[in-house]
């Protein structure tokens, strides 16, 4: 029997793809495996153990940095998502008006500048403000994180809005709903999946950040990534693997949630 011609086949592509997936996951698997290594050095296998998880748990610096990361991440993500939702409502589903292109450019600007440059700029700017006001709390980190999280939160919210059927809101207005009622009862419920996706994306991006945090933080304001970077610079212990594993697990949980939310239709 003659084999039919495979329209979608391209020679070698499948092999490259397979290699990519293996290469993407192999280092992660090794990293996780070493987290359960009983040996003190990461170069040999000393049997299965949970002791590095315990040691990380008892390390007050780790707990401190983790809590700080979550605190900054949660506040920045919530603020960024609220602002991004408002901005998305202001920039979609309209005839072009003066300033619309400017808004797009401004909102996406943090994506277009290397983090190191933003980091340096904030170091300079915030150090002036610190001297001027005397305040050196977490506010600076939260402001910086909110700013660079906005374009990420904006993406899924805007996409959701643009795919939304305008006639639904028109139908609500036709059925005597005032603009506010229309927003509360129709727009917002339909927008929720986009908002949740934006919130999670913003939270992950905030947790991920090293560079800007490194430049903005005052003494004693290490987040988990900056703490880990400091440790790695000094030499590695499997404790870092244990922390990474927990962090990784968190990422998987969030991606899974994100996936189900953004895939959900209607």
């Amino acid at each position: 029997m003659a084999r039919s011609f495979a329209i979608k086949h391209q020679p070698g592509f499948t092999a490259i793809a397979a290699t990519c997936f293996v290469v993407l996951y192999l280092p992660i698997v090794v990293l996780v495996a070493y987290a359960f290594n009983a040996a003190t050095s990461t170069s040999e296998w000393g049997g299965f153990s949970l002791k590095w998880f315990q040691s990380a748990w008892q390390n007050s610096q780790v707990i401190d940095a983790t809590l700080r990361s979550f605190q900054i991440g949660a506040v920045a993500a919530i603020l960024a998502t609220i602002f991004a939702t408002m901005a998305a409502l202001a920039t979609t589903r309209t005839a072009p008006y003066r300033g619309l292109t400017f808004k797009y450019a401004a909102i996406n600007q943090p994506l277009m500048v290397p983090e190191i440059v933003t980091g340096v700029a904030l170091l300079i700017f915030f150090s002036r403000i610190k001297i001027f006001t005397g305040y050196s709390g977490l506010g600076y980190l939260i402001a910086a994180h909110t700013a660079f999280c906005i374009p990420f939160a904006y993406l899924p919210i805007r996409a959701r809005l643009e795919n939304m059927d305008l006639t639904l809101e028109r139908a609500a207005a036709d059925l005597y709903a005032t603009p506010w009622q229309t927003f509360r009862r129709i727009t917002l419920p339909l927008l929720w999946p986009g908002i949740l996706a934006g919130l999670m994306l913003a939270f992950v991006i905030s947790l991920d950040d090293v560079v800007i945090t490194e430049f903005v933080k005052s003494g004693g304001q290490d987040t988990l990534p900056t703490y880990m970077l400091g440790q790695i610079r000094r030499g590695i212990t499997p404790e870092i693997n244990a922390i990474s594993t927990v962090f990784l697990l968190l990422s998987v949980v969030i991606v899974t949630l994100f996936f189900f939310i953004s895939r959900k239709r209607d």
Partner: protein
Amino acid sequence: MPDKPGRNAIEVKNVRKIFGTGEAQVAALDTVSVSIRENEFFTLLGPSGCGKTTLLRLIAGFDFPSAGEILLHGQDIASLPPFKRPVNTVFQSYALFPHMTVAENIGFGLEMLGKPKAEIKARVAEMLKLVKMEALSGRRTSQISGGQQQRVALARALAPQPKVLLLDEPLSALDYKLRKEMQIELKRLQHETGITFIFVTHDQEEALTMSDRIAVMSSGKILQVGTPWDIYDKPAERFVADFIGETNFLTAAIANIGNGKVRATLKSGATIDATVAEGFQPKDNATVVVRPEHAKLTNGKGELSGAVENIVYFGTDTHIHVRLDSGEAFTVRQQNTRSAGCGFERGDTVGISIGNDAAQVLRD
């Protein structure tokens, strides 16, 4: 005119709607005036882009007119937002809220009007019964069929008892059989509720079968308003005659104008009696229309003569295309019988006899 006089539900007065600015300006509606009576099934008919949906949107309040007035029972509503107009719409896409159940959709308008819960519940039940959807009240709108969605959309728009119901090509998404069913259903609902229906469609057959009156629109203008019978048999302009059904156009000289009747002298030299469109101005070459079913093919006698060019069989009838001696084309529709063919062949020389009261003179 066989129109029954009645109170006006909607009066559209000199309405213009211009989209765009400067060079790119387009008049979607060009000084349109029309009155729609209470309890009437009124249809806006025209090809896409003729302005019928724009007019509907102005009445609904989704757009504001650039000039002119829109009166609802004598009150100007042109500047009111949609949620302050006692007018409801059935959307082409139905626009059912996907995050609500069938019952929640139907009750939405009443809820927004701040009606008491008990009243809403009773009214929703009544509506579900009216559109025969009682069994599916708890379903999500994504879990019901297209025809059922259509019924929910109707029930939702009727629930707040609007003064006028606007229907924007509501049947276009349904398949042929369901569409026929819904046409009858819509007539029944209009009859039972006594609400004025304004129906937008591009389907001339749908318009003819359903409407009390029809407004034919083209390029932002209303060309003719009348009963289906008026529109079909006494078209005022070439566009109307051409858009609705099939028609023969003949050039003629017009004489003896009076009392809405004229004598038309065709190119063949024969004269026929004809009715004349309102606003006709006497001129040398007027256009006379004759519907294919109002002419008869003969073996030589008749007002016109020519040769058979083509014969097309349609099951119920046969269309015989004739090239007249004057060079004009003419089609005759002949009812089929079971026993024999149409009795003519290609190339035959034939006569055409035009019946009494079969011709109408257009104003353009």
